[in-house]
């Protein structure tokens, strides 16, 4: 076999193999994103399960924060019942995080509640699940960044375009959470 034929064969193999490898890598990235979101979703569900306990524990004490409690219940019902997109889920959970944070700050005003064994246990569980959700978000962001790199970088961006893969959003801390908690304002609301 002469040199020319070898080069042609190598080129043909490269033309077939190379796109196949990119295709598989992109699929792998997409699946990793979905997989990680599923794990995060499981953690979010764990938090939904804690919400009824939280409401039951605090509602007798916190007469002035009834609106917040009602809002948390509504958000939870919406989160577990609807068929939401990833973005909507993210948005809804941001709201839940914010509302639970508000309750935890408001508890400072109720010494009996703050020192009750039930609430202390619940608070520990909530802290744990919040920390797990935070870890889940960081894991999701890391995987989505890798996916986004693959979708936008040459040469895989060509294949990604053909496959209809688009850039995905990462979790960001919303403006409300970024600001330091202003306890005075929280109680005014």
């Amino acid at each position: 076999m002469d040199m020319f034929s070898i080069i042609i064969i190598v080129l043909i193999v490269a033309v077939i193999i190379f796109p196949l490898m990119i295709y598989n890598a992109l699929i792998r990235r997409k699946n990793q994103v979905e997989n990680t979101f599923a794990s995060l979703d499981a953690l979010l569900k764990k938090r939904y399960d804690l919400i009824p306990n939280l409401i039951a524990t605090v509602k007798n004490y916190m007469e002035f924060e009834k609106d917040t409690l009602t809002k948390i219940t509504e958000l939870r019902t919406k989160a577990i019942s609807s068929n939401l997109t990833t973005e909507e889920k993210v948005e809804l959970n941001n709201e839940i995080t914010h509302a639970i944070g508000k309750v935890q700050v408001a508890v400072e005003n109720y010494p009996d509640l703050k020192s009750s064994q039930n609430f202390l246990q619940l608070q520990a569980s909530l802290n744990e699940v919040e920390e797990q959700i935070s870890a889940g978000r960081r894991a999701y962001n890391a995987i989505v960044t890798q996916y986004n790199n693959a979708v936008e970088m040459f040469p895989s961006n060509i294949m990604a375009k053909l496959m209809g893969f688009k850039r995905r959003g990462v979790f960001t801390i919303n403006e409300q959470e970024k600001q330091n908690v202003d306890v005075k304002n929280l109680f005014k609301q």
Partner: protein
Amino acid sequence: MKTENEFKDFFNSQFQSYAADAIKQRSKYVRKIFLNYFYAILSILVLISFSIALSIKNFNWENLSIVYKVLAVLVFIAGVSLIAIFFMKTRKLKNEFSNYYKNKIVMNIVKFIDKNLEYNPNEGINAQEFSSVDLFNKPFNRYFSDDLIEGTLDKTHIKFCEIHAWYEQENNDKKDIDKVFDGLLIKVDFNKNFKGKTYVLPDKNDKTYTYFFGLGEKKNTHWGELIKLEDIEFEKEFAVFADDQIEARFILSTSLMRRLIDYKRKVDKKIRLAFINSWIYLAIPFKERLFEPNLFGRLVTYDVVVQYYHIIQLSLSIVDELNLNTRIWGKE
């Protein structure tokens, strides 16, 4: 926790009586050990003279009567046995003094640092546990562990001990020794519940990527999947492997990463950590044996004992450095 100045005061006051006792004891043991060496050397000289006598040209072993032959063999056996006995006795004496020293000197330093700490010079962490922690991915067939210090600091249980593990094999009449670990292993109760395994190793273990136009796939390693974390400085110092990347991030929160960088800089050694079943295992390498008495050199001078203080404080400080007494994540 006691400061170094407080330790200095302790050294200059109360400790001096323990030091004086230890020096007296050492002189006693050194005398006995020298006497043993003397007898051993004497036995060797007798044996050498005996061998020279037997190898004199005109000497004919065949001409000796059976009684002399038996006597010669007996003298030879007795000489060899005596040498062995003297060396065994020396070893026993060294162990006895080491035990005395640890129970008197090291024990008092441990109790000074925190009177709730327990010190067991002859106990350690067993080989099965060390092997199951799997920090080194190297087999070993020789192992010993001693100097166990254990206690509870506020809400956090901690124990640490000295460990030596190595692989030894005979190769053409030569002993090949492959060291696995020499140093301290610290086991601390972590403040979060978790089920999987997460390893934080020196960054040289980070060569596990196969690059392909940015689509590089992470290879699964012996310790699990390589986890890339957000903290660039942390990534420069360590490589993280875990069987569950969400759990790895749950353990290695952004603040814990910063705390680990600071702790690593304080220790200034290649530390390895394993997070297993809600425990942290931390390995700090030390080339030398720890807490051992020096029979013929400085025994209880300040520069010697302050080293013990530093090693114990360094081990205990992990509880504060990693903020392990903060128990707000559901673990008591």
